[in-house]
Structure formats: C-alpha cells, structure tokens
C-alpha cells in the first residue's frame, strides 16, 4: 500500500462577498467522511451565488498566486479557477517506494486556455507554470 500524507499545502480562495476561505479551515474544513474542502467550496459558492475573485496556493509562508479579477500586474482576468492534486508512482515492479510524487495544481481558466501553477508537495521549493490549450 502506498500512502501519501498531506504536506501542508493549501489552496486559498477570495470570494465575491469578501470572504477568504482557506483549504481545511472553517466552512471548508477537512472532516473525515464529509466532502473534501474543494467540493465544500464548490457547494458554498453555488448555494450562495458567489464567484471566486482570487485564487492561489499557500505552502507555509510561500504564496503562489494566480491572476485575480484585479490582476496585480494587469494580466488577463480568468473566467474561473480549479485546483487538484496529482499522484504519480511506479507500481507492480517491486519499487513502489522509489517513485512517489505528489503535486498540487491551481488553474486559472480562460476561454481558450488554462494557466496552471504546480507545486511539488515533497519539495515545495519547486514549482512550475504551464499554459494549456483547452
């Protein structure tokens, strides 16, 4: 069995009502048996007719920010945001523990493309930016 512990990376969402929600806290708490913080966020913004105005990843004091609705450097305003984690492992070959990678990815979604920020959850000094055609 392969186990990957949460290393402390969190997404943070600024909402159209002025609230700021941090993954794992308050309305988007991580509680066993309940929806994950991400799906709690989706339900909360839908039920309250809110939108996300800013989005990013926090790892301790490191902040990885996507363009907001008022981009700090005058970039394009995203239509929406997404966030997920990716796990990559070698399996079936006697070396399950030699390759075990985990990343968190935050996406700013535009009409024709997505901007992704990836952070390595095992070495949070490593991050990457991708531009993906939809």
């Amino acid at each position, binding site marked *: 069995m*392969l186990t990957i512990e949460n290393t402390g990376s969190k997404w943070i969402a600024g909402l159209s009502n002025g609230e700021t929600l941090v993954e794992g806290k308050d309305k988007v708490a991580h*509680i066993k048996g*309940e929806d994950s913080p991400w799906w709690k966020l989706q339900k909360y913004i839908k039920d309250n007719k809110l939108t996300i105005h800013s989005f990013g990843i926090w790892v301790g004091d490191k902040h990885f920010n996507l363009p907001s609705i008022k981009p700090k450097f005058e970039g394009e305003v995203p239509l929406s945001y997404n966030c997920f984690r990716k796990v990559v492992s070698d399996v079936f070959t006697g070396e399950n523990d030699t390759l075990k990678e985990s990343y968190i990815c935050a996406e700013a979604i535009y009409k024709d493309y997505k901007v992704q920020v990836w952070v390595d959850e095992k070495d949070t000094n490593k991050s990457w930016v991708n531009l993906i055609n939809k």
Partner: protein
Amino acid sequence: MALTQVLVLQGVSPTTLEAADSLSFADGTFDNPITVDAYNDSTHIRSSVGVDDSAANTPVNNKYIAAGTADWGDGTEDIELATDAECALKISIGYDSNVTVTDITMFGYDGTTPATAQTEMTIQMAEQADTEWTAVGGSGTALSIADSDTPATSHDFYVLISAAPTTVGVKSANKMRFAFTYQ
C-alpha cells in the same frame, strides 16, 4: 489526512501488492518462462525474496488472445464481458474525505525514461468494460481509465493485464507507472 493507493491481484482470495513486491507473469507455473511472443498463462505476486506470495490465493489470469478478446479461465471471450472479479488487477484509491479521482493513466516504460516504451516485451491492458486491449508502451501510449467523478472516500478500478516477451530473458528492468489526479 492521507491518501492511500492499494494494488491487489485478484483471485479466490486477494493478494495485496506490498512495496517491495512485483507482478510476475509465467507460463502457468510460478517462475516458469513464457515462450517468446506468447502471452501469460498465470499471474503472480512475487516477493522481494522471490517467493510466490499469491500461491495460496488462486489468482486471476488475463490472457490476451486478440484485439478484443481474452481468456480468463473460461476460454476465449470478448473482453468487455469480464466482470470486476475477472480482472486481474484491482486498484483502490482512498481518502478520508470525499474526493473525485480523474485523469487516471497506466503505462509500461523502460524503467528510465517514462516516454520510452518497455523493452523486449508487449504489455496489453484494458479497463473493465473496454471493448479492446490497449498495447501500452511509454507515456504516449497509456491505458486511460475512466474518471470516478462522484465524490467518495474510496474509488475502485479494475484492470485486465497481459504480457508477452518478444525476446528470451527476464524483463525486470521495465517499470509500470500509475498516475491520477484528485480533488
């Protein structure tokens, strides 16, 4: 909070693949070689010290016959008829809160470069209900497994797997990679 990934060789009793174990294909008897260009007649879990950990569990074997057919012990059948229990592999992704699991891929590679296909062997894979095998080989030719997009604490995936050597010799340098996203 932790995510778990459990790999099982199914059978009368399941055999869980532990960290140092490997999946082993044979001609029907553990450690017996398969004829070049023929497919496996048995599938085993091999421990790090070379023991057949699945010996007592009557493991399922999926044998590639043709593009859309396989033999899992009842003669040649269309692969989409394989039930969950008739797939050799069960992969379970668990999390303590309800998540979705998406963008799931599996492929063989040469053990060094994920984009490079495994050497000197053919690996066929199919998800349960697929109508055709996928000959996996490097990240560009991966098996794509359907998203499990209803949030839940456990997600199970069932996969048929079959392999054939294309030359004589042990093929243990090759590796199998598994990747997915969750949220």
